[in-house]
């Protein structure tokens, strides 16, 4: 017996939520001073114009000598490609060293902070350290501590990234320690193992793959973060980007941005496939386990 359609559930909460968001949006837009909202409609056209100039730079013959402002004598488009690539490698090296520092310091600390492995009340102090570091932007470590000590060098950038990575990596590592199966730990302890032996035999093998995947993910994050430190003066691609775009040399900016995009995408792809391999095993044993979800980055940087 067909009856009338059931009544649709109330949409009131969703509507109220939407209205609240809209109110917040308008409030924030009104509060934003000296925003020059009238310039907004012109932005797409302007940006498209710059993109066209950037594309011209990319499409130019690398042996040709560019004309116009900001060209050092003897520079060709090829020189610009080369400088961008060279500085990008600087940034990647900075990010890698930062990740190595962060990983090697956060790894032992995480064992002293996890609920199931930490020997004592020490863990509250170390958790506090992780959370504290995570709340401070990496730029702050750079300008308050690393640049004064190491000067305007990539070393300062690598150190800032390294210290900053301790917070996130420490938190993620301790979470993966807490997620292990307690069985092996009990077994090893029952056979009279010391604390260090328990960690090595029962804990590390269980959490290492996941932790290594986090390290690689952090490396990808650090590559992007190193650009910021470059703008501050730590060298690398950030310095080139800020000089070139700041002086509105759009042809050169196009070349530099393209190098950044291509190199970053390639490194990301390599890193993602290594991460996948670490988590799921080699491609031959992947069958049957492939539907395990990869760790979402959202849990990684949060």
């Amino acid at each position, binding site marked *: 017996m067909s009856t009338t359609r059931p009544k649709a559930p109330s949409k009131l909460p969703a509507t109220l939520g939407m209205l609240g968001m809209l109110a*917040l*949006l308008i409030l*924030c*837009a009104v*509060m*934003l*001073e*000296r*925003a*020059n909202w009238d*310039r907004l409609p012109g*932005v797409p056209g*302007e*940006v498209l114009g*710059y993109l066209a100039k950037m594309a011209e730079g990319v499409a130019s013959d690398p042996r040709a000598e560019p004309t116009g402002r900001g060209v050092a004598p003897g520079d060709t488009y090829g020189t610009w490609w080369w400088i961008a690539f060279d500085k990008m*490698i*600087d940034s*990647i*090296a900075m990010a*890698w*060293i930062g990740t*190595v520092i962060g990983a090697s310091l956060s790894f032992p600390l995480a064992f002293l902070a996890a609920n199931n492995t930490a020997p004592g009340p020490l863990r509250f102090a170390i958790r506090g350290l992780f959370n*504290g570091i995570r*709340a*401070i*932007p990496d*730029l702050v470590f750079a*300008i*308050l*501590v690393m640049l*004064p*000590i*190491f*000067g305007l*060098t990539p*070393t300062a950038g*690598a150190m800032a990234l390294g210290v900053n990575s301790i917070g996130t990596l420490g938190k993620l590592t301790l979470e993966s320690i807490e997620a292990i199966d307690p069985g092996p730990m009990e077994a090893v302890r029952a056979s009279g193992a010391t604390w260090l032996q328990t960690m090595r035999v029962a804990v590390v093998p269980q959490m290492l793959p996941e932790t290594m995947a986090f390290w690689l993910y952090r490396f990808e994050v650090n590559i*992007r*973060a190193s650009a*910021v430190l470059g*703008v*501050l003066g730590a*060298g690398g691609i*950030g310095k080139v*980007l*800020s000089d070139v*775009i*700041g002086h*509105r040399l759009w042809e050169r*900016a196009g070349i530099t941005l393209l190098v*950044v*995009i291509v190199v970053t*995408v390639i490194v*990301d792809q390599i890193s993602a496939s290594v991460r996948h*391999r670490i988590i799921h095993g080699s491609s031959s044993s992947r069958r049957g386990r492939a539907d395990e*979800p990869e760790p*979402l*980055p*959202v849990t990684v940087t*949060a």
Partner: protein
Amino acid sequence: MSAPAPTRTARPRKPPPGPSAILGVVSIVGITIFAVTWINFSLAPLYTNLTGGWVVIREALQPDWGYLRWWCPADDAGCNPTNRIRLWKALLETFNIAVLASMAGCVLAMGMSLLASSVSAPKPVVRVVKVFLSAVRSLPDIAYALIFVAAMSPGPLPGVLALTIFNMGIVAKLTSESIDAVNPGPIEAADAAGATRWQRARTAIVPQVLPNYLSYSLYVFELNIRASAVIGFVGAGGIGTIINLEFNRGNYDRLSAIVIVIFVVVVALDLTSQTLRKRLV
């Protein structure tokens, strides 16, 4: 039982490390050595230049709390009320930029993510959109800030636009992955009832990914508060403008007071957003 206990033999030999473990260790060591030599990484300044750095650090360890006052003390005749309130205005601007950019970015991201998943869009479209999104994500937030500041004049609007694009890249990627993993049941039901592509997305896909999507949105909002400390450095508004100013003047005591304020704000917003996110998912 009568079976004799197995006699205790020597410990079994430890299996040798596999080829991928060896390759992994060798490449980690190799890349590290390459990176260290490439940028001349050296910890030597830690003991040769500690005094030089220590001057700054000592100043930073004594924050100038007076700088945080938004009123003029009665006994200070030279105090300028507009200068006093500048820091707090910049902080408010940071919050406004973050709200506007996360909302705009997330709205764009919803559309993009529907185009970036083969559940909701045709294959060729998905391929193009995915390439576009990974290009967008490969640039750091500061690059967008530089571009928009150069294209418009410095101010908060370039900051909003830069973070909008940055947020769109992140949220679209995460949401499209959630769309890939939705339960196919409702989609089949919608198809069977003759839904158009748009109806199918609206009734069968979006409601399933909505909690995740909202949680990602809150996550980028948290990121934006931190990011605006950075983008202000290149003229894109927010608290970074003040940091840049005091950094160039070498007022490290003021900087550390600002840093403490940012720290408190970030922790407070993180805690709020984390409780919200826990309730969503």
